[in-house]
């Protein structure tokens, strides 16, 4: 595995007598978080091999948290992922609260959701604006776009900063929050701070509309590829869910409680990946914005619904590239719901609550929607609150199998195209999932006592 010593991209094509071979090897796909490789080999239009590989260095978080106090868990597991650090923090805290039967107030719930929305907005703006937009505008990165499309880049920067500001005000800093604890917050925002956030949220609506219009104007650059699959996300009866709810699937009307998540993810090891893969009712399933949309689109708030109609995105869409569009719609959804949450917290009056934890032995699971899909954590603690076992199942791991199945279905459809185009379409497919491969944590077969 050399950096730069050999090209990242090796494409060879030989027009031999009667034989046309196509070979695509992308070593470390760019503009994604973490490391993934694409391999495709075909001869005379027959695909001999098409593979999505994950060579990310494993980090063994489940092993490392053993022996640590419940108080240290969030600090450690937040480091699984820079861009989902709030989500990992909340999955851990919810699991700890379930294990120790800790109840939190409505105020804590609302401020957590608000903080969580900051991360959704920041991550979606970064993904759509910095990582995907260059593909749609025929560039290698966002850097040339700063000159060719300065207004678009500045719009994305403003939305990105708004997400970051929410995290900084409520979480203490932009990445790896410090204020979030089992039971509540170490410090609470003031009413003035919340009103300031509210004003910024209201001011962001034109930017969200602009982002949607820009993506809409480029929507014909998103490849047309459909493959029916299972979509899994948190669901609530009356809300578009990111933080609360049970596990829902497009393959069944039944929902599973979060505490039974292992029976949903069914992870397994494959030689082409250091990350584990997952399956439930089919060979693979998809999580992320499109999954949330396919399960929750009926509960979108007005602006998000309006943007969804502009795109004509139907519930039940099975084009994975449309995950990017679902992310744009979700930017509107989280902004609108944030305004409601701020009003609710302020009108109830901010109460000076401190986390109240009675340490006890227990085992609990927590689930939250990361920007890139549903995230599960489970921990077990002894009577002193020392962690004795953990099981973490991250969204991108759940998507790896689905990316592979998409490759297998899509490659034959595009194999007669130019090789550079084949490469680009496969890279774009990976990017559409907004993978976060650094979250290299894995299922384990823990014997919980």
């Amino acid at each position, binding site marked *: 595995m050399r950096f730069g010593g050999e090209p990242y991209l090796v494409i060879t094509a030989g027009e031999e007598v009667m034989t046309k071979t196509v070979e695509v090897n992308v070593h470390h796909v760019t503009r994604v978080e973490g490391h993934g490789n694409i391999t495709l080999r075909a001869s005379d239009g027959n695909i001999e091999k098409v593979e999505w590989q994950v060579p990310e*260095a494993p980090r063994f978080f489940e092993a*490392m948290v*053993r022996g640590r106090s419940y108080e240290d868990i969030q600090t450690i597991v937040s480091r699984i992922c820079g861009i989902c650090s709030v989500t990992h923090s909340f999955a851990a805290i919810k699991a700890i609260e379930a294990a120790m039967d800790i109840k939190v107030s409505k105020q804590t719930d609302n401020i957590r959701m608000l903080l969580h929305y900051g991360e959704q907005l920041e991550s979606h703006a970064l993904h759509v604006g910095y990582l995907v937009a260059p593909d749609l505008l025929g560039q*290698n990165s966002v*850097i040339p776009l700063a000159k060719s499309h300065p207004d678009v880049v500045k719009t994305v920067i403003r939305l990105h900063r708004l997400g970051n500001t929410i995290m900084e005000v409520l979480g203490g800093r932009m990445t790896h929050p410090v204020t979030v604890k089992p039971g509540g917050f170490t410090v609470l925002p003031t009413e003035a701070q919340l009103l300031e956030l509210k004003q910024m949220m209201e001011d962001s609506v034109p930017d969200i509309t602009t982002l949607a219009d820009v993506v809409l104007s480029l929507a014909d650059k998103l490849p047309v590829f459909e493959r029916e699959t299972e979509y899994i996300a948190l669901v609530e009866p009356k809300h578009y869910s990111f933080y609360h709810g049970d596990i829902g699937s497009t393959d069944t009307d039944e929902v599973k409680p979060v505490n039974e998540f292992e029976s949903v993810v069914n992870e397994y*090891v494959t030689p082409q990946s250091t990350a584990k893969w997952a399956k439930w009712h089919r060979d693979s399933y998809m999580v992320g914005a499109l999954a949330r949309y396919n399960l929750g689109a009926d509960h979108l708030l007005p602006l998000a619904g309006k943007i969804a109609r502009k795109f004509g995105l139907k519930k039940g869409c099975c084009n994975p590239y449309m995950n990017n569009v679902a992310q744009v719609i979700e930017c509107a959804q989280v902004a609108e719901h944030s305004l409601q949450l701020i009003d609710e917290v302020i009108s109830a009056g901010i109460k000076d609550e401190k986390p109240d934890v009675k340490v006890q032995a227990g085992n609990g699971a927590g689930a939250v929607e990361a920007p890139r899909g549903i995230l599960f954590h489970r921990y077990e603690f002894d009577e002193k609150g020392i962690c004795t076992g953990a099981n973490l199942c991250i969204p991108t791991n759940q998507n790896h199998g689905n990316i592979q199945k998409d490759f297998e279905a899509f490659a034959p459809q595009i194999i007669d195209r130019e090789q550079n185009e084949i490469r680009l379409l496969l890279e774009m497919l990976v990017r559409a999932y907004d993978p976060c491969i650094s979250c290299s944590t894995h299922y384990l077969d823990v014997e919980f006592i």
Partner: protein
Amino acid sequence: MSKPKVAFFDFACCEGCQLQVYNLEEDILNLLELVEPVEWREAMSDKAEKYDIAFIEGSITRPGDEESLKDIRERSTMLIALGACATIGGVNKLKNNFDLAEVKQCVYSESAGMGHLETSATKSVGEVVKVDYHIHGCPIDKQEFAYIVRCLALGKTPVIPNHPVCVECKMKENICRFEYGEICLGPVTRAGCGAKCPSNGMWCFGCRGYVDNPNVNAAREVMDQYGKTIADLQGKLKLFGSKQEATDEMA
């Protein structure tokens, strides 16, 4: 003068330090006036052979990654460790407190023997190659990053703080975390973060590593004064400071 060519690489980490570069927002555009990114997998599809400045995020946890890092070092004029995983090993070094075979067994169970899941003891970047500058923190402070890039682009030597977090915490007029009955690593940890954690109701967990020559005796006195034991301290030191010389000394 042509702009220095910079590159970013990441090994075992959360990529949250590169995220702080994005988090500079408009200021990135200003930095692009001073330096030219030529390779940055997370942001660009371009690549290059030689770099004036290579930023390395992440710890080294596999023999193959050591070779990759040495290769980058050979092709770089200056190499900078970016963030705690790179500067001190960070949370990744928690793994080194366990038997590695057992760690693999714990996470991958019956599949632990598969060759591609190989792992070795976590190393900081400086344990593998020469490091010219360290940008500390988990995550790094984006303003400090911008300051260091500006200094280097202009041929100046950046000043990396070498006083403890307590200094910055006192300037913020925070109540000492020990007064809350907590153990805080502020007395021995390198400042430069603006005491973000103590200012937000959390003890310092030492993500910027130790100051040079940490005042171990003073740290012991503080522990005694607040009725804390060395065992209490050891537990906290392990979080970001596992397998560092200063940790062993204090323990």
